[in-house]
């Protein structure tokens, strides 16, 4: 057949005229292909692309949010640290001031105490002295009167007591001594 067609020269077919059967078959086949691919495959690919974009952008957004939160926390910690430092310094200053106050208090108290002790000692001494002076006066008077009695030969004790001679003498002596 090929041979005959080649011999005949004129072909039974014109390649530029489409066969209507092939148009029908091709249309149906291509329509089926379009229907399946455009309905079930490519929209899902588009969805996957979108999901991928979302995943990446979401990841970036999450990372940015985490970064911002971390920065904020860092800032907060820094503020807290500075605050704590200020507080510590204040506490230290206060403590120093307190210590100074306490020291002053203790010093004052100690001084007061020592003054009090000294005063008490002085008082005790004065009292002692007064007592001694009084005793001495009595004793000296008695001794002097006794002595004088022995010298004079008579008892002057009642006389001296009566007239306060000894006292007078002693007072004069004292005032002379004091002068």
């Amino acid at each position, binding site marked *: *057949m*090929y*041979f005959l*067609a*080649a*011999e005949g020269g004129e*072909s*039974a*077919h*014109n*390649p*530029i*005229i*489409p*066969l*209507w*059967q*092939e*148009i029908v*078959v*091709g*249309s149906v*086949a*291509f329509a*089926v*292909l*379009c229907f*399946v*691919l*455009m309905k*079930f*495959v*490519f*929209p*899902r*690919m*588009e*969805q*996957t*692309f979108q*999901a*991928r974009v979302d*995943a990446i952008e979401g990841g970036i957004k999450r990372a940015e949010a985490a970064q911002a939160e971390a920065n904020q926390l860092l800032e907060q910690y820094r503020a807290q640290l500075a605050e704590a430092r200020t507080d510590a310094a204040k506490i230290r200053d206060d403590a120093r001031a307190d210590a100074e106050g306490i020291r002053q208090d203790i010093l004052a108290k100690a001084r007061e105490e020592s003054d009090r002790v000294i005063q008490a000692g002085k008082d005790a001494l004065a009292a002692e002295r007064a007592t001694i002076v009084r005793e001495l006066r009595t004793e000296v008077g008695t001794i002097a009167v006794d002595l004088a009695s022995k010298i004079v030969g008579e008892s002057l004790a009642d006389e001296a007591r009566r007239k306060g001679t000894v006292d007078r003498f002693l007072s004069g002596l004292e005032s002379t001594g004091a002068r």
Partner: protein
Amino acid sequence: MFGQANVLAAGQAGFPPTVDDFYLPSILPWGAENSYWFTKITAMVWIAVGVLIIFFLASYRNPQLVPTKKQWFAESIYGFVRNNIAVDMIGHAGVRFAPYFTTLFCFVLLTNAFAIIPFFQISPNSHIAFPAILAIISYVLFNYIGIKKHGFVKYFKNSLIPPAPWYILPLLIPIELFSTFIVRPFSLAVRLFANMFAGHMLLLVFTLGGFAMLSANAWLAPVSVLSWVMTIALTFLEFLVICLQAYVFTVLTASYVQGALADEH
């Protein structure tokens, strides 16, 4: 195949090849000459449709955010047409056409590829019926999109009246009408058809030529071998044409849609 080769070697096949070599006998009913419902050509179209559907459904049955190898491959085909054709030509609005363009690209590429796949070795697109269908769809698509976007009158005004001085318009409007609304579908269909037709014819010439020379004179055997080497070289060329024509058909369709969507001429 070797049986066929023997037949060829015995000089029973015609040389040079003719247009009739493109019209193969029917499969069902077997061997009928003028029955075109179920031939090798229509069978290949169905196979192409089946292969594409199965491939895409299987690789996208359970899509993952982190794709598997198969899913990645399917995605990169779609991503290629979507980003390098639809978005590049039309801009962001082109994304909604990407599914059709990808379907078109895959269908043309695979049916073209049958031209060099062993045992198929003829492309359905060497029958003008199939490129014609695709061209008519593209034609209807870009006109429909344009009319839908601009309205009937404004669309034709945009398409037919270029921004030119008034006195040159009587010359330009018929040219625009002719090139946009008459020539476009024909050029689309004929470009694809003629490329595949010529490619198949070239391979036939060199293959059959080798057998013809061998059967004419045994001393011509080296030339026959050279002829078959040329067949192999031309198969590589044909591979280039296959990919290029699938790409060109899709890009031109995208370009027409872009022109229909454009606000100004």
